[in-house]
Structures are given as structure tokens and as C-alpha cells.
């Protein structure tokens, strides 16, 4: 008898503020009206996806001291839109990014517990740890967190939120009309937390929710980020959507689990992935080239180069050669509020390599940015894409993918209609939901079961 196929987990990321959304496409709709989110969520649920995912950004990005205007700008509040989506869906998980630096545990725990109640157990929290003073200018706590403290605050934040969520057992509300007893125990929700970042005590005022705790996601690729995920997360958003990189990351992170007493199934590795579908592989490849050109306009290419050069390059022609001046190696001041900036750690080397590449291929600035930029993860006919995704998962390069279409809100429709049925035929993806909570979809134990197992083991 052959081994049963590993089941693929699929999720959908609503494409918002990033440089992959093609807003100029005639099919592109609103990225802010609720109808777009409802369409996207219903498509993902129709396709039996595990969850949909909303990212977050708490300060508008800037370039050269002015708000960046070439990509989609503007997004709704994560909690509010997820709660509204709970009304128009029944099963799909609702995952949101919530920052641990510019929030307080009591409030965030309340919001996730509320979302979990209001969605019947479908909430998940992607914990991010932005710390910068740029974002801090929008918040009371003002200023910023020293970078080395960000994971320490995040871990304590998460632990504290967990203590609050665990402060109700789940059986305190008896609501006995005859005796007039509403609560079994007046102390329900009591907590005390005294730590480096938080010194709080009192009573949490949301009784236990269906999942007990939201599912915890973590995104972040640093050494600290990997440890944080291995210790505390249920799933990790990874950047690695090529097979060999994916396998290396998968091995590395899953290998860290035993030291925290966890098994490989307790942490899912879910890379973000883009896709372009065509009737044939050749058609999809052609379409993918077009999409890349739409994603990288001449103006976008110049701005992208500025991330590395850390200088104003607006005088350069995007269809001309790369600048012959060197990057400014000083503190990065040109682009603020973007993750890409931190990815180019050695601008002088990057610039030299790019000049060599451009010279060898006779690439203009725009060609270079298109050619060196992120390629679409999956390009091909539905059969090709289904086979590739399945191979990734069966080959332990991922447990599934978070798909990011390049058009809002209909960019998922074709995937749902063509690729998903092929994955189902392969026996690698569910034909219908088995359970009702996100933990059910992800195959994660209920936290109360975990706690019971721990008690039994000790």
C-alpha cells in the first residue's frame, strides 16, 4: 500500500500594498471597498482554502521624503475587515497581521478572542515585530523599540496575550436562571503578568473563545525569527518558493522544533507564492512576461534602484544604462517604511554585480529590475501548476502556499476553478472542509488538548 499523500494547505493573500499588484489592469477593482474583500474571501472559501490573509502597514511608505505613489496605497483595518468577512463566509480561516510593537496585549488579546467568538473559531494572528521610529510617529508610545528588543517584546507580548486568553477555562458561564448564578467563579479571567516589557494584572473580560487561542503565524527569516517561530508559532510565512531553497528552509526550521518539545506537524511552513495561469505553458509564460512589465514601470524601476543606491536617481532614464555613480553607503534615508530596503545589506556589491549583469545582457535599468526581480513562483497551464505545487509539498519544500494573485479582487478565480480541482483529483487537497475551525483545517490540536497532553506527560 502506498503512503497517503501529504495534504496541501492553501491560503490566499489579498493583494494590497506591494509592488506585485497590477492596479492598471482593466480587471483591477477596488482594494478598499468591502465588496472586493467579500469576493476574494468567497472565492477562497469556494476553493476550500484554509484561510485568507491580510497584511498590515502602519505608516505610508515614503521615497525621497514624499509618500510613495506608484503602487497601491491604502488598506482597511485588519480586525474590522476580518470581522465583517466572518459574516459573509462560514468556514475559511481569517488571518491578520498585527504588530506587537504598537499595540498592547490586553487589547489585542480581546480583539482576537472577540474575532474568534464572532467567526466561530476561525481567527489567526500573524505576529510581526516592526520597531522603527518612522512607524512609531503614528503612536502614543512614540518613538521606537531598540531593534534588539523587538523579538524580546514580541515573545513577551505573545506569552502575555496567551496568559490572558487562558485566563478563562471555558466553563465559567453557567447562566442558571433559577439560582441567579451567571458566573461559576467571580475570579474568571484573573491574571498577573510581571515581566520586562509588561507589568499588568486584573481580569480579562472576554470568556474563552471556540479556538481558545487564535492560530499563531510568524513571518521573519532572521535567526531570531526562526527561533521565535520554532518556539511559539503554529505556522510560518516563508519567502522561499523555489524548490531547493524551500527544502533547506523547511529542514532548518523543522529541525529546531525538538528542542522546544514539538513535533514537525506542529509548525507548518507556508511560503508566499505568486502564479500566472494560461491555457498552455507557453501562453502562461508570455502572460507572465507581460505581468512583469506591468509590475515594473519605468518610474518603478528607478525607484527600485534608489533602494540600493540610497540616492535620488530621478534624472536617470529607465530605458538607459545603470547609473555610473556609486551608491551612498551611509544611513538609508531615501526610502522609508519598506521591507526591501533592509534586504540590500551591501549596496556597493549589489551595484557592482548589477552593472556587470546589465552590461553582459545589454539591459536597461528597467530590464535589469524586471530580470532580477522576483519571478512569479508558478507559471504554466493549470496541470503544470498543480503538478508543481504538489511536487513541492510532497518533496518537503513546503506544507502549502499562501497565494498572492496580482489582480484584485478576481485574481484568485481562475486558480480556484482550474488548479484546485486538479489538486483534488490528485488526492492532495481536500474536497470539502472536515471541520469548522481554522485549527481543524490546519490539522492543529486545540490548545486545551495540548495543555492536557502536557499535563499527562509531566
Amino acid at each position, binding site marked *: 500500500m502506498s503512503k497517503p499523500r501529504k495534504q496541501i494547505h492553501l491560503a490566499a493573500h489579498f493583494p494590497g500594498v506591494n509592488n506585485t499588484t497590477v492596479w492598471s489592469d482593466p480587471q483591477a477593482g477596488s482594494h478598499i471597498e*468591502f465588496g472586493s474583500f467579500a469576493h476574494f474571501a468567497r472565492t477562497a472559501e469556494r476553493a476550500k482554502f484554509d484561510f485568507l490573509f491580510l497584511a498590515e502597514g*502602519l505608516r505610508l511608505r515614503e521615497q525621497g521624503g514624499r509618500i510613495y505613489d506608484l503602487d497601491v496605497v491604502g488598506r482597511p483595518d485588519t480586525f474590522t475587515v476580518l470581522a465583517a468577512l466572518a459574516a459573509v463566509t462560514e468556514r475559511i480561516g481569517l488571518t491578520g497581521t498585527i504588530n506587537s510593537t504598537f499595540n498592547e496585549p490586553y487589547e489585542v488579546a480581546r480583539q482576537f478572542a472577540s474575532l474568534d*467568538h464572532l467567526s466561530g473559531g476561525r481567527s489567526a494572528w500573524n505576529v510581526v515585530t516592526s520597531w522603527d521610529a518612522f512607524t512609531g510617529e503614528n503612536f502614543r508610545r512614540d518613538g521606537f523599540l531598540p531593534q534588539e528588543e523587538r523579538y524580546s517584546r514580541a515573545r513577551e507580548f505573545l506569552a502575555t496575550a496567551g496568559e490572558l486568553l487562558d485566563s478563562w477555562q471555558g466553563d465559567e458561564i453557567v447562566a442558571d436562571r433559577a439560582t441567579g448564578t451567571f458566573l461559576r467563579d467571580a475570579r474568571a479571567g484573573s491574571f498577573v503578568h510581571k515581566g520586562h516589557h509588561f507589568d499588568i494584572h486584573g481580569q480579562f473580560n472576554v470568556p474563552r473563545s471556540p479556538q481558545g487561542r487564535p492560530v499563531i503565524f510568524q513571518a521573519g527569516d532572521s535567526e531570531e525569527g526562526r527561533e521565535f517561530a520554532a518556539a511559539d508559532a503554529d505556522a510560518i510565512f516563508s519567502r522561499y518558493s523555489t524548490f531547493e531553497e524551500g527544502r533547506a528552509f523547511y529542514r532548518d526550521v523543522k529541525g529546531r522544533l525538538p528542542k522546544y518539545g514539538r513535533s514537525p506537524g506542529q509548525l507548518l511552513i507556508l511560503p508566499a507564492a505568486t502564479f500566472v495561469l494560461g491555457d498552455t505553458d507557453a501562453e502562461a509564460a508570455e502572460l507572465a512576461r507581460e505581468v512583469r512589465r506591468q509590475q515594473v514601470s519605468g518610474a518603478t524601476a528607478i525607484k527600485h534602484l534608489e533602494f540600493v543606491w540610497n540616492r535620488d536617481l530621478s534624472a536617470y532614464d529607465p530605458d538607459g544604462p545603470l547609473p555610473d555613480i556609486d551608491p551612498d553607503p551611509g544611513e538609508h534615508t531615501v526610502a522609508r517604511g519598506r521591507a526591501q530596503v533592509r534586504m540590500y545589506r551591501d549596496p556597493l556589491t549589489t551595484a557592482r554585480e548589477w552593472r556587470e549583469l546589465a552590461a553582459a545582457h545589454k539591459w536597461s535599468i528597467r530590464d535589469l529590475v524586471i530580470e532580477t526581480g522576483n519571478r512569479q513562483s508558478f507559471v504554466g497551464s493549470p496541470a503544470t501548476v498543480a503538478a508543481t505545487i504538489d511536487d513541492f509539498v510532497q518533496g518537503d519544500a513546503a506544507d502549502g502556499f499562501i497565494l498572492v494573485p496580482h489582480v484584485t479582487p478576481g485574481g484568485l478565480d481562475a486558480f480556484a476553478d482550474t488548479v484546485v480541482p486538479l489538486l483534488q483529483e490528485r488526492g492532495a487537497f481536500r474536497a470539502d472542509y472536515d471541520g469548522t475551525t481554522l485549527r481543524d483545517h490546519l490539522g492543529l490540536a486545540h490548545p486545551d488538548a495540548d495543555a492536557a497532553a502536557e499535563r499527562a506527560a509531566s
Partner: protein
Amino acid sequence: MSSDIPSPYPLPASSPNAPLHLAVALDGAGWHPAAWREPTARPRELLTARYWQDVVTEAERGLLDFVTIEDSLGPQSSHFTEPDGRTDQVRGRLDAVLIAARVAPLTRHIGLVPTVVATHTEPFHLSKAIATLDYVSTGRAGLRVQVSARRNEAAHFGRRAIPPFGIEELDTPAVRELVTGLFDEAADYVEVVRRLWDSWEDDAEIRDVATGRFIDRDKLHYIDFEGRHFSVKGPSITPRPPQGQPVVSALAHSDVPFRLVARSADIGYVTPHDGDQARAIVTGIRAAQEAAGREREPLHVFGDLVVLLDDDAGAARARLERLDGLAGTPYISDAKVFAGTPAGLADLLLEWRRAGLTGFRLRPAVIGHDLPAITRGLVPELRRRGAFRDAYEARTLRGLLGLARPANRYAATSATA
């Protein structure tokens, strides 16, 4: 007993023919502490989406202007400033903004006004949350801003200390200073929230394919708020909501909160116990409004009432007595407790309207009983008297309240620059 005094202020001020506005305040099983023990109550469902969907839908069936949803950052308490440790009353509640968002797609006309605690939350987060509520409800969002002077709630955040005090110390200098500070901070909070709503001009998104620009960044504005308690840079991450400015409201019992209403709100909820008190309160708020330089802006003053409604006034009073018996003590509220018939309540509302109130926020003592009594008893009664709408006449909450969509303060600046 009252005469109609012409108001020097523009609408919405008192006018015998002005439409009456009606809201209900939703909290748990109802406002009476024993409400959850009534046969119509659903005490085990208070944390479910279905319960909230049902009650808000019922309010919408009555064509009410809006619902408010109570909230707090600590357990409910019968004590003024401290937890009470009781087990015989409803304890535990969900985040009000999220309840409002959860019911928004399932309703079409009714306004959704969650309670928000300004003392411990971030105006940046709240501004985008209410803007988003406005998007998911297509223009029906508001908020009720509230301060928290509870020491136990401050301890849930650990960022500020609030000294202990009792209700009898409200008039001492120390407590007055504390309360004034909290309300001043709330006024700053509302100012930040409002500036953030305006930080995008309505037509900032241009999608100009020719130049590759998604937005016109000259139509996005830093709000650069600098206050005593916090500073906020802006702009919002969320574009200007459908109503431009969702409706801001606050409950007010005395001079300090009257000033917050006068400076910052579109609706103030007040708690007179008779027509003369109502008149005095309205006069006080209108004066504070003038002092704040807002005399030309519309400001609703709603009277709050706890209501028990039955077809027979004796039955309503008997029900109150029975509930008080279950609770073990007579129910006392900041607001007047009305136990009587829908017709009797209609008489009272119309009388108080002559005192200058422009609407009412009714707090059903038992939601399962008194909410349907409002929507199916009081509303038809008011309609018979020509005092309430026959159908929803506007698509937004501002529209229902007769409030225009405000111009963007920053657009005006850039137009004259």
C-alpha cells in the same frame, strides 16, 4: 408645562415638526442587572454573532437611526469605579467595534455605533477601524467615545496609574482634575481621529496609467498633531471613509463631558429626569457649543432613557418590581427609568423634544422584551403621531441624522494655497 422657545441655533435643534431620531443602546441581555434571567433572554448566546445579528436586525426592522454597542476594557461592575466580584450578573463582553463589523454586511440601513475607550487605546488604530466600519457598512459607522477612570482597567495596560476614588469624591479637586484631564485627552483623541479621516482627500486615488501614479500624493496630508498626551504624524493608512467623517458621539452627565460633546461630537447623550432638567442641559450644551466656536455646526442632543414597555402600564411596573426582586435591590440608573406603555413613552419623548432634545437613545431593560416593544409598539405609536419615519430615507447614518457630508479640512487648505 413647557413652552416652545425658538432656538438661536441651526438644525438639528428643537422644533415640534423636526423628525424625531431614535436609537437603542445594546448591552448584554439588557440594562437591568437581572435581564439575563428573563425567559426572553439568551444569556448563553451573548458572545455569539447570531445574537447580535438578531438584535440589530430587530432594531433595523423598527427603522431606528442607529444602535450603540456598550464596551469596556474590564469586566462589567455594579460599582462606580472598582470591580464588584459579583457572580449574579452578566460578565464578559466582546469588542464592540468587531461586533459592529460582524453585523454590518447583514444589515442595510441602520447606523452602527460601537463604544470606544479613548483612555487606553491608540487613536491611529481606532481611526482606521471606524473608517473601515464605514466601508464595510457603506456609510453607517459612528463611534461613542468614552473615558475610563477605573484603576483596574488602567492596570490592564500598565502604562498609567489612576488613583482610587469613590462616587462621593467626584467633586473633590483631585478627582475633578483627574476627570478633566481624561476628558481633555479624549478631545485630543477625537481631534486626531477626525484629522486622520480627512488625511486623504476624497479623490486622492487617481490610477493614472500614463504617469504610473496610483495616488496623487498632494492629496494626502500629514496631520502633525501635537498634544499634551500624544502626538500623531499621519496620514491614515485607510482612505477617507464613505461618510467623510463617521458620526462621533459621547455620553455626558456634567459640565466637563458637556464640553467634550460641545467641542468634539456630532451627538451627545444626556440623562435628564424631567423636562426642566432636559431644558437646562440643552441650554448648557448649546452655550458650551458656542464657547467652542461650533455654534454653526449641527449637534444632536439625545436623551437617554432606560425603558420597560408593556401594553399595560401596571404590567410594566410589575415587571420592574419583579426584576428588582430578582436582583435583590431596586435598579438605579444615571438615566430615568421609564416603566409604562408605548403611548406613555411617546408622550414623554414628545414633551422632552419640546425642551430641545433632538432624539432619544433608549436602553431596553430587557433586550428580548423591550427591544421588540420599541420597534413594534413605540415606533408605530410615534409614526401615528407624525413624529417618526415610515421608511429609511437615506443610505448613510449622516443622512438619517440630517447631517451633511463634511468638507475635507485639508482640501480647503490646499484649494486656497
